[in-house]
Structures are given as structure tokens and as C-alpha cells.
């Protein structure tokens, strides 16, 4: 595990040399393939070293973060062509990857918090440094202050746990039961803000829309999953209080997911629509974690991974449209099938995965989550039915508005295809299908476990 950390640290001097843009991206792909070949064991912690470990959740999320970081660099080729501080951009991406890798793989809860907060700084730099509109300043402030407001009580909770239990190792926390309401609220509030839950979700549309494509990809892909990972870790010693209080979070997130799905229909900005759909998906993830059954955990983990891939891919596609038409509005981006018909294949595949159509991994996650939430309460069937229905609705709405219909008469000319984009999308989809097969395999294992 340390070997990957050192590989990333030594990529930092590589970012500042001349003509190393594509080499860094290839090295990240290489690291992803190296990481995939670690021995994987589902039911325990493995690869333990001095301060690192890996279990199934960490493994998947680290893999996702390395993957998305390499795709981020590929998608930001225009920074390299236009020579817009790409050295510092590469440093930012590698630094963010190191922080994310360390967040998911350290054994110590305080170090988890340390790197959880540290991953905010390069994200903020990405949004404000390479974003496009002047509103990005406000977006950066919203991101920073919403997440800091949530995570400062988390620091208090972690230090309280240290003083009480005299240990911070995540593995040992399962032997304790902290039965305190205030501790519960302070520990999970940070992750609920990060997920985001409905009432504290305001930072997400702003940050996703104002960020450049790399910032949007990493935000949608991984930063939301930090909240989910934190919840999965912290719930272990908060189970008793959670059983008393989880209905609050489940109801807020499910009803909120419903409202957000309906709000998606009102969006004109493509990226805004994808951002709100992220909130709707994450609302189901929160519901799945909070009910605390096994299907809920598994379903939320699978939905996190699949949503990471799917959302990043959609932001990448939205950016492809933005680079050619310089607008993200649905009024202008219509009838793209006339110009880029092969692009409509990628839009269709990603949007069908977004609406959880078979055989995507999202379907597996949503089925597991629906199963777990309905087993918790029958009434959640109504909410889940409407959330799934509306997610199909707005995905189809986005697809048909962008691809079908008459194109905008104000278009003059733009180049149609660019070879490196093919690789991004192919890789995104291949990873989808690969995870698909893995996902269905695990599903089979889970079924047999019962």
C-alpha cells in the first residue's frame, strides 16, 4: 500500500517537467492496473502495513479515485493545448489523488479526518483557479464553508472518542458502542453535508456547475463518496443510537430526493441537471446506509461506485458539448445527433445507466437499495418508486433534448470529433462493464450467502 503512495509522491516532480502531460496520465492508468491486481478479500481487512490497510470498500473507492483522476487529466486536454497553468493543474490533480488515496486507506480515524479535510484544498483550487464563470468564487465559498461547518464537529467527535476509548484505529472501533446522541449528531453531520443530504445540499449545484470539467468529475465521482465512506465507517460504533434516530435522515433524504428529482426537470443548464441528479442518487445511498441492513450497505456501496463512473462520464460529455458550442444550455445544445451521431451512443449509454436501466451497475445498486429500504418500511415504496421514475424521466428528458429535435439555428461551425475523447469514453464504458461483471458476481455471492 505504501508503494502506491510513493508512486504518487514521485509523480509530483514529473508534473513540472516539460512535455510530461500525457506521461502523467499514462502513469495514472498504469497505477490503476497495478492497484487492481492486489489480492482482494471480501470479508476482512487486508494489505495491512504501518498505517495503511485496505478492505473491500476502500479498495473500490481507491480504484475509482485513481481511475477518475486519470480520466480528469485526459478530459482537460484543452488546458494543455491552451497552456493555461497545466503544470500546476497536474500537481493539483496528483495532490488531490494522494489525499483521496490516504483518506481511504489510513487506519487512524484522526488521519482519516485530516486527509478528508485536506482533499478540500485542491478541489477549491481547481474550482476557483480553472473555472469558467465569475460565480465560481461564490461556489468555492459555498463548498468550503458547508463542508467545514459539518466537519468541525466531526473533529470534536473524533477527539472525544480518542479521549474516551484511547484508540483511533478504525478496526478496533467495532468493539465499542458509543451511546450518545450529541456524539452521533456531530459524527454523522459532516458526512451528511458531504453526501449531500437534502437540506444541506446547496453547495453541490453551485460547485458542480462552476467547476471545470476535471473539478466536476472529481466532485461527482469521489468527493461525494467520501461522505458515504465516512458514514460506513462511523456507523459501526453508533449503531444503537442510529437505530433510534435513523428515520429522520432516511425521511429527509428520500423526500428530498423526490423534490430534487422533480427539480431536475426545471433545469436549463446541463451540468446543473446532472448535479441535481447526483443529489437524488446520493439520497438513496443515505437511505441505504441508514437502515443498516446488509443489503443496504452493499447497495449503497455499489450505487456509489456506479454513480461515480456514470456522473463523471456525463460531466465529461457535457464538457465535450460545452467546448464545441460554448454553452451548457439545453436550448442551444439540441439536435446534436445531426452533428455527432456517434456521440449520441455515449450519451445514451451513460444516461441509460443513470436511470438504472439494465444491465448497468446502477441497476444492481438500486435494486439492492430498494430491497433494503422496503424491508425497513413498506411506505418507502411510494417514495422510491417516484424517485426511480423521475430519474428515468429526467435522464430521458436530457437525452431527447440534447440529441433529438432540430438543431439550434445559431450554430456556425465546430469540429466534430477528437480522437482522445474516444479513449475516455471507451475506458469509462469498459470500466462500467467490468464493474458490472464484478458487481453481478458479488450479487450472486451475496444471494448464496443468504
Amino acid at each position, binding site marked *: 500500500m505504501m508503494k502506491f503512495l510513493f508512486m504518487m509522491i514521485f509523480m509530483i516532480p514529473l508534473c513540472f517537467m516539460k512535455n510530461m502531460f500525457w506521461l502523467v496520465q499514462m502513469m495514472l492508468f498504469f497505477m490503476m492496473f497495478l492497484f487492481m491486481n492486489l489480492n482482494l478479500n471480501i470479508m476482512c481487512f487486508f494489505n495491512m502495513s*504501518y*498505517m495503511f490497510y485496505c478492505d473491500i470498500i476502500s479498495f473500490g473507492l481507491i480504484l475509482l479515485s485513481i481511475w477518475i483522476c486519470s480520466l480528469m487529466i485526459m478530459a482537460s486536454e484543452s488546458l494543455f493545448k491552451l497552456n*493555461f*497553468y497545466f503544470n*500546476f493543474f497536474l500537481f493539483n490533480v496528483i495532490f488531490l489523488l494522494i*489525499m483521496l488515496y490516504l483518506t481511504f486507506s489510513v487506519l*487512524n480515524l*484522526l*488521519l482519516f*479526518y*485530516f*486527509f478528508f*479535510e*485536506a482533499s*478540500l*484544498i485542491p478541489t*477549491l*483550487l481547481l474550482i*476557483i*483557479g*480553472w473555472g469558467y464563470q465569475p460565480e465560481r*468564487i461564490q461556489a*468555492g*465559498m459555498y463548498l*468550503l*464553508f458547508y463542508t*467545514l*461547518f459539518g466537519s*468541525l*464537529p466531526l*473533529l*470534536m467527535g473524533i*477527539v*472525544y472518542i*480518542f*479521549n474516551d476509548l484511547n484508540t483511533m484505529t478504525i478496526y478496533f472501533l467495532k468493539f465499542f458502542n458509543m451511546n450518545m446522541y*450529541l456524539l452521533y449528531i456531530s459524527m454523522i453531520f459532516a458526512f451528511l453535508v458531504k453526501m449531500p443530504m437534502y437540506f444541506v445540499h446547496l453547495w453541490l449545484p453551485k460547485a458542480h456547475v462552476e467547476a471545470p470539467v476535471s473539478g466536476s468529475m472529481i466532485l461527482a465521482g469521489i468527493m461525494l463518496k467520501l461522505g458515504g465512506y465516512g458514514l460506513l465507517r462511523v456507523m459501526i460504533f453508533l449503531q444503537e443510537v442510529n437505530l433510534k434516530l435513523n428515520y429522520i435522515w432516511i425521511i429527509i433524504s428520500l423526500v428530498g430526493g423526490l423534490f430534487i428529482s422533480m427539480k431536475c426537470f426545471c433545469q436549463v443548464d446541463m451540468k446543473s441537471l446532472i448535479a441535481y441528479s447526483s443529489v437524488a442518487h446520493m439520497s438513496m445511498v443515505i437511505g441505504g446506509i441508514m437502515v443498516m441492513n446488509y443489503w443496504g450497505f452493499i447497495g449503497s456501496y455499489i450505487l456509489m461506485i456506479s454513480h461515480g463512473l456514470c456522473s463523471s462520464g456525463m460531466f465529461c460529455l457535457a464538457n465535450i458539448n460545452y467546448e464545441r458550442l460554448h454553452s451548457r444550455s439545453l436550448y442551444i445544445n439540441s439536435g446534436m445527433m445531426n452533428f455527432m451521431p456517434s456521440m449520441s451512443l455515449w450519451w445514451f449509454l451513460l444516461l441509460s445507466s443513470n436511470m438504472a436501466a439494465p444491465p448497468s451497475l446502477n441497476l444492481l445498486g438500486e435494486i439492492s437499495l430498494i430491497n433494503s429500504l422496503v424491508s425497513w418500511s413498506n411506505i418507502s415504496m411510494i417514495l422510491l418508486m417516484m424517485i426511480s421514475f423521475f430519474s428515468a424521466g429526467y435522464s430521458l428528458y436530457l437525452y431527447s433534448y440534447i440529441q433529438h429535435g432540430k438543431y439550434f439555428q445559431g450554430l456556425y461551425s465546430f469540429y466534430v470529433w477528437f480522437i482522445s475523447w474516444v479513449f475516455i469514453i471507451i475506458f469509462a464504458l469498459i470500466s462500467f462493464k467490468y464493474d458490472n461483471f464484478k458487481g453481478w458476481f458479488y450479487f450472486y455471492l451475496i444471494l448464496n450467502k443468504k
Partner: protein
Amino acid sequence: MFFFILTNNNSNKMFFLFILFFSTLISISSNSWFGCWIGLEINLLSFIPLISNSKNLLSVETSLKYFLTQSLASINFLFMILIKFSLLKNFDMNNIISIMMNSSLLMKMGSAPFHFWFPNIVEGLSWMNNFMLMTWQKISPMILLSYYFNKNFLIFMIIMNLIIGSLGGLNQTSLRKLLAFSSINNLGWMIFSIMISENLWLFYFLIYSMMIFMMISLFFLMNMYFMNQLFINNMNFFIKLNLLINFLSLGGLPPFMGFMPKWIIINFLLINKFYFLTFIFMMTSLIIIYYYIRIIYSSFMFNYFKMKWVNLLMKNNMSLINLSSFISISSMILSTFIFM
């Protein structure tokens, strides 16, 4: 400070600087309260010549204001010492006389609610004098505070410090006043740390003064006194990065070095079960980060108007910036090593 004195051909102030250092040592190492008072008086007397410059009317006025407030506090301190010795011969720390003694020392430091002179005077001083005022002048009142303090009174003062330091800086555009309010806020953290142990205070104080030194030396070399000056300078990339890292570090954000003292103080707060106080520490720290980020907007945005008539002559002073950049960036890595 030495650097400034030597470059400005002002070596007659070196004498006063040495006496300033010795006065603090007299104050903190004396066996009797009279010795403490003598140290404080010599401190005042030697600081006045350092800050007053007879050619500049503003600095004369500033030094007069400083003299008046500090001598009031010293007289109050002396009076309370005499009352304690002659009338009350007890050693109990939680009584009214300790409140009076602590108040006079808090006024010497510029802590709330006796802080009204502090932003005013900081506005009238140059950057290097500000550095002495914000760091060195706090040492002896702090240590004297730790010898005889009233716990409940000091906790109330800490809360006032935090709130005034965070809310006071929201409407400021002068960089000196911003750092003054941030100094008042950090005084809250330091007063709490000195109630726990002097070692802890020393740790916080050293890291704080190092961060303040890096920022003040940056502003001094760029000759920046106001927030609008941040946007019209042709800062090169490392200076911007240095500014960014320093301010985020001062705000206490991980992964920078400034997170470490705050984390340790939160640890001691929670050991001693000050839960609500910890919450106030966190939330005021959030407000402080807000106005720090307003300052470092200029370093977040990579392309802004670069005026051609602003010529930054930095050829003789690059070593200080390089050193402070190196310390700022390596402190990130060092702070992760501390945790392992």
C-alpha cells in the same frame, strides 16, 4: 526586526530592542510580583522609542496612545499587587483580586474586552513593529497570567476574545487591522492553552508567531497595507502560493501546519469537558477562515489584471521569500509526520 533595523540605517534602535528582550526576561523570571511589574514598565519604556519616529506624525500619535493605555494597565497591575499583598494574604486564585490583576494583564495584551486600542494602534505602525507588538509583547503578560488566574473569568474572556476577533474582522479592508483581529482571536486560543500548561502555550505561540512572521514579512516586502493592493501587484507564482498556504495555515485548515496546535488545544478542551466552549472555538474559527479567504482570492485566481506600472523590486530580498515558501510548503509534510 534586525533585518529591518539594519537596512533602514537605524541601528540606534538596536539598543532599545535588546532592552525589550531583557525586560520580558526580567518580568517572567522574577521571584516577586514587583519584579514582574518592573519588567512590564521597562517593556513599555523600551517599546516606545522603537515605534515612534519623530518625522512621522501618525507614528508619534500611535506611540502616545500606546503609552497611555499600557501605562494605565501597568498602574492598575501595580495597585492590585499592592492590595493583594497588604490586604488579602491568601493564595486562592478564584477571587475578586485575581480578576482585577488578570484584567490589567489582559489590557496589556490587547485581549477583549480591553481590545479597543489594539486595532487602532496596529493601524499606525509599520509591519515590523506590528510583528513585535503581536508576538513579543504578548509573552510576558501571558506568562504572568498563568501565575495567578481566575478560571471562570478567563473562560468568559476567552469567549469574548473569540467572538470579537472573528466578528470584528468582517468589515475591515486594512490588512493590519485584519491581522489585529486575527491576533485577538488567537489570543483566545492562547489564553486557554496557558490555563492548561505553559508548555502547551509555548507550542501554540511558537507556531503562531512563525506563521505571523511569514505573512508579515511577505506583506512587508511587497509593501502592502490594504486589501485592494493585493490585486494590482505583479506577484509571481510562488509568492501567491506562499500567501495562500500561510493564510490557510493560520486559519487552522488541514493539511497545513496551523492545524496542529489547534487540534492539540481541542484535545485538551475535550479532556477537561469544555464542550460548549469547543463549539465556540470551532465556529469562530470558521468566520476567521472566511475573511482570510477574502484576502487570498487574489492568489486563487491565476489570471487577473497585472498593471504594468507596478514594478516589484525584489532582487535583494528574494532569500526571505524563498525561505518562507520552503517552510510553508514543507510544513504541510512535516505536519503529517507528527501524527504517525
